[in-house]
């Protein structure tokens, strides 16, 4: 019994303090993929129904909607090309290298952490697709989180709302820097240690600042929903709502930052 206690405490410390169990964990995760697959069956049936048992009219409606959206996006993209060329020329004038667009890989969410306090996703892409620990994850609307563990065919993602996650951000309007921390609630981030006099207001968009050299610069993270300034407190109490659909997204994008994130971010900072 004493031995049992010793082993368990040893494992706890090894994992918690020194993160020494990554390989063993990845191996076991691969071994347990069948359990995830079986647990996914109800959702898979739901998807199959959605795909095969839909009325013609709803499909046509969808199609119409997508064509319209596509037209709008293409329209915006026309300007994008000239703006990008413009940007590259201006950056050349400033003697800084051109910002490259990041590559992305589409992944599918195949599992969520069963514990409601733990905000993690399991993706169907892993080491065999060059996914790496620390890789940022986005959806159509904003930053979702980062990869924390890679096994051969799957990877585990920590969402930005997990209580153990923090992301360096800046206010898009004026560049004020802060750190957005997860709270364990899926629609709430808290921004701590911002002086009460700082210019930050409801409705401000927070984007990744690139500090900390983990996330590429400029991805939307959250919108400020509440700013409370108590004269008795040194810091303002700021709440924000994540931009990404953290509990709904089925398909997500893994971002491969071109080159060294730190270098690209430094260039962007120097140029902007």
């Amino acid at each position, binding site marked *: *019994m004493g031995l*049992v206690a010793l*082993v*368990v*405490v040893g*494992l*706890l410390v*090894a*994992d*918690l303090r020194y993160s020494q*169990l990554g390989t*063993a*964990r990845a191996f*076991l*995760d691969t071994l*347990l993929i069948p*359990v*995830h697959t*079986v*647990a*996914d069956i*109800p*959702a898979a049936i739901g998807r199959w129904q959605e795909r095969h048992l839909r009325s013609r009219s709803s499909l046509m409606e969808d199609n119409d909607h997508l064509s319209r959206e596509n037209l709008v996006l293409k329209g915006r993209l026309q300007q994008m090309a000239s703006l990008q060329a413009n940007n590259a020329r201006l950056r050349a004038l400033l003697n800084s290298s051109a910002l490259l667009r990041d590559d992305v890989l589409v992944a599918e969410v195949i*599992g*969520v*952490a*069963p*514990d*409601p*306090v*733990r905000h*993690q996703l399991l993706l169907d892409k892993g080491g065999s697709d060059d996914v790496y620990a620390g890789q940022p994850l986005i959806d159509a609307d904003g930053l979702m989180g980062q990869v924390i*563990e890679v096994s051969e065919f799957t990877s*585990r993602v920590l969402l930005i709302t*997990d*209580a*153990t996650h923090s992301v360096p951000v800046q206010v898009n309007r004026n560049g004020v820097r802060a750190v957005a921390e997860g*709270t*364990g609630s899926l629609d709430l981030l808290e921004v701590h240690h911002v002086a009460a006099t700082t210019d930050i207001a409801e409705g401000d968009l927070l984007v990744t600042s690139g500090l900390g050299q983990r996330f590429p610069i400029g991805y939307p993270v959250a919108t400020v929903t509440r700013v409370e300034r108590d004269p008795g407190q040194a810091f303002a109490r700021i709440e924000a709502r994540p931009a990404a659909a953290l*509990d709904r997204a089925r398909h997500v994008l893994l971002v491969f930052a071109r080159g060294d994130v730190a270098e690209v971010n430094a260039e962007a900072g120097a140029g902007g």
Partner: protein
Amino acid sequence: MVEQQARGYWVILSSFLLAYVLAIVPLTGLAAWLRPEWLALVLIYWAIALPYRVGLATAMLAGLGMDVLEGAVIGQNMLALALVVLLSRLLYQRLRVFSIGQQALTVFFLAGVHQLVCQWIQTVEGAGARSLWFMLPAITSAVFWPLVLVTLRRARRHFEVY
């Protein structure tokens, strides 16, 4: 005795696999908070029914799998389940003669211990709960105990696992 002990490993194993699946089937909203601790329930049953076969080693192995599935710190479920099995083995002679209601009450207590231990370790990790909702599974585990008991007892007798 030695010959009998070799019987029905697969029944025990598949009950654990089923508990794993039930433990990670995606649930949303309140249902996620109410999810019973299936693995602890199955483990308690086997620890009471076959205390000479299912003990600490089984609890540790099952806990290790759960830690990996849940993405928890390795050792969290191992410790919690080891404690649960230890307590059930202390109590198994009494538990066997208890009425189902008394058993459910004991299970409530055991699942509560499980939740508390998990909560302590999560708090050390920095992912502690902000309310007492994490204790809800103790109640639902007690509610689902009769179902687990009847199902596993039937399986055990049918497949003659001794």
